[in-house]
């Protein structure tokens, strides 16, 4: 049985087989999308015990880890070795990438939930890539959001004191005709 997962930018294929004495034999392949380029990243003899709640004890080639796994809206949230990892099944990962491409590259969207403090531009303004266009406050810290590209502000979808969240497109910036981003 094999299943694909995305962590960060990389895709992994995980193959789980039966090992000795109740252990699992787990093989991990990197970048399985390009079938020709599969690389076996690692093979583990794994033993796992559910402890309680979201806590698991995991032995990989004899080395023990005490970890946590919980399903979140974006994928499995995993805590192991003192760090958090987001392990995303590929169908979610695809949408995530699409969103990132759409939201981050073309429009201005807040990275965290917050409240709009100040709008720094108006419709029709010409802005440069990296220019601050709107100030958002979350948890009492202000962040100035920059335009992701040079162009003309075509639409402002928010106003001061509005509550906004990641994915909300606050300000739309269109490339000028004939111009191309660097």
């Amino acid at each position, binding site marked *: 049985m094999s299943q694909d997962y995305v962590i960060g930018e990389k895709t992994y294929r995980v193959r789980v087989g039966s090992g000795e004495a109740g252990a699992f034999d*787990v093989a991990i392949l990197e970048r399985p999308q390009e079938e020709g380029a599969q690389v076996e990243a690692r093979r583990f003899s794994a033993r796992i015990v559910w402890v309680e709640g*979201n806590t698991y004890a995991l032995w990989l080639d004899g080395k023990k880890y005490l970890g946590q796994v919980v399903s979140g809206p974006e994928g499995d949230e995993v805590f*192991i070795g003192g760090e958090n990892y987001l392990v995303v099944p590929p169908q979610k990962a695809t949408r995530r990438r699409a969103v990132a491409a759409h939201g981050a590259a073309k429009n201005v969207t807040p990275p965290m939930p917050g409240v709009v403090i100040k709008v720094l531009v108006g419709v029709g303004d010409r802005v440069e890539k990296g220019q601050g266009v709107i100030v958002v406050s979350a948890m009492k810290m202000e962040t100035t959001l920059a335009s992701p590209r040079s162009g003309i502000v075509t639409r402002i979808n928010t106003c001061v004191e509005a509550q906004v969240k990641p994915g909300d497109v606050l300000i739309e910036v269109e490339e000028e005709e004939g111009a191309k981003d660097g």
Partner: protein
Amino acid sequence: MFEKVLVANRGEIAVRVMRTLSEMGIGTVAVYSEVDEKALHVLCADEAVCLGPAPPAQSYLDIEKIIDAAWRTKASAIHPGYGFLSENPRFSRACLDAGITFIGPPPRAMELLASKTASRRTMAEHGVPIIAGAESGNWDEDLLKREAEKLGFPVLLKAAGGGGGKGMRTVHAASELADAYSAAQREAQAAFGDGTIYMEKLLSAPRHVEFQVLLDTQGNGVHLGERECSIQRRHQKIIEETPCTVLDPELRATMGEAAVRAARAAGYVNAGTVEFLLDADRRFYFLEINARLQVEHPITEAVTGIDIVRKQVEIAAGEPLGLRQEELRPRGHAIECRIYAEDPAADFMPCPGTILALKEPVGPGIRVDSGIYAGYTVPIEYDPILAKVIAYGENREAARRRMVSALSGYAALGIKTPVSYLRAILEHEEFIRGNTDTGFLPRYFADWKPSQELVLEALVLAALAPRVRPAATIQAPSPDRAQFPSPFQTLGHWRLGET
């Protein structure tokens, strides 16, 4: 002693204050905004009063509503915690007028200290050294530029109305002055209800060393030693420790004496913190007095064995301090790490959200002051501090290693925390050597990213967990071993002849 005390705050500090109140046999009243109905401080209190909508101005900063809540619940005193109204003299006066004891300094001292500028002047008069700076009630671009050039760049813009890194900006060139000023001004207005800004010369990488003082109404006053708070990111303390690695007994005694003198000069009573900057030549400068319980007070509690909140309550009730400077012998070493809701992989952006799973570290010498729990949703409206981890050890290295162990076991899923960042700081060789100053993080950690070394291990864990996860975890744990049936089960079967 008070029968009931209202805690005019939220989060970890409200929970921590209520713990001591309960131990003293004092009833506790929480106040909360509509988004905080299920906040931990509400669940910990004996009683709770809803103040209104989420924005602080309509809830935690609304003096009238809070006084009213105290009246309605018959609370005879109010503990303000830190932040919010804690350093607001109008609030302290309003309590006084309403016949409610404010657990903190008297209004006049607060009025003086609430103005960081006025307190600078008072300290200078009493021979406490201060940093060169400039004040104005009417800053404009020209004036900002003139004063900054007089002091020489870089300069620091600071809120006259409060501390904690809010409304503070470092400015390196005249061109940045106007923007920095308006941002600082707005932040200060939002945080403290006072947008007044003053300017100070920026010292090059000093240490931030503060002294905890306690003064009672009978005129007794002591200091409980120092806290070294140089590990700061954007003027926000994130790791504190005591003792400071560069203070010897002589300098400690000199600074401690200056701290108590500074507090007395301000007419201070109750627990307070006198902040100093300490430069590389071991010269110290008065920064400000924080006229309240400090976020990092637990490390002083760890090395002195004194419950500072209990002392606050006793002092407010008119009891004598009962401590003498020569008998106070801090022992061992303590470190605090602050856990904020922020993403260390994305420039420490604040990250509110729902906590899906939480496991806080425990063990000898470990204390966690927490305002969260699994299932709790961190709101966007307030300070991003979630919890503090405090580690005590016989010496600095024992405390540091204990903290590393504790952080390795701090699991919060569903939100982002800086735990791996904090651990990396604690493991940095210059931190290990005790070479900390306020330039530490910009110098060594500007480009830090989470190491994410166990990607493959995380993958295996996620892939295998569903294979061993029981169907319904909470209602009926089904461990591998057979459970002992209860008497009626066994005998029921036995009588029916089923087994």
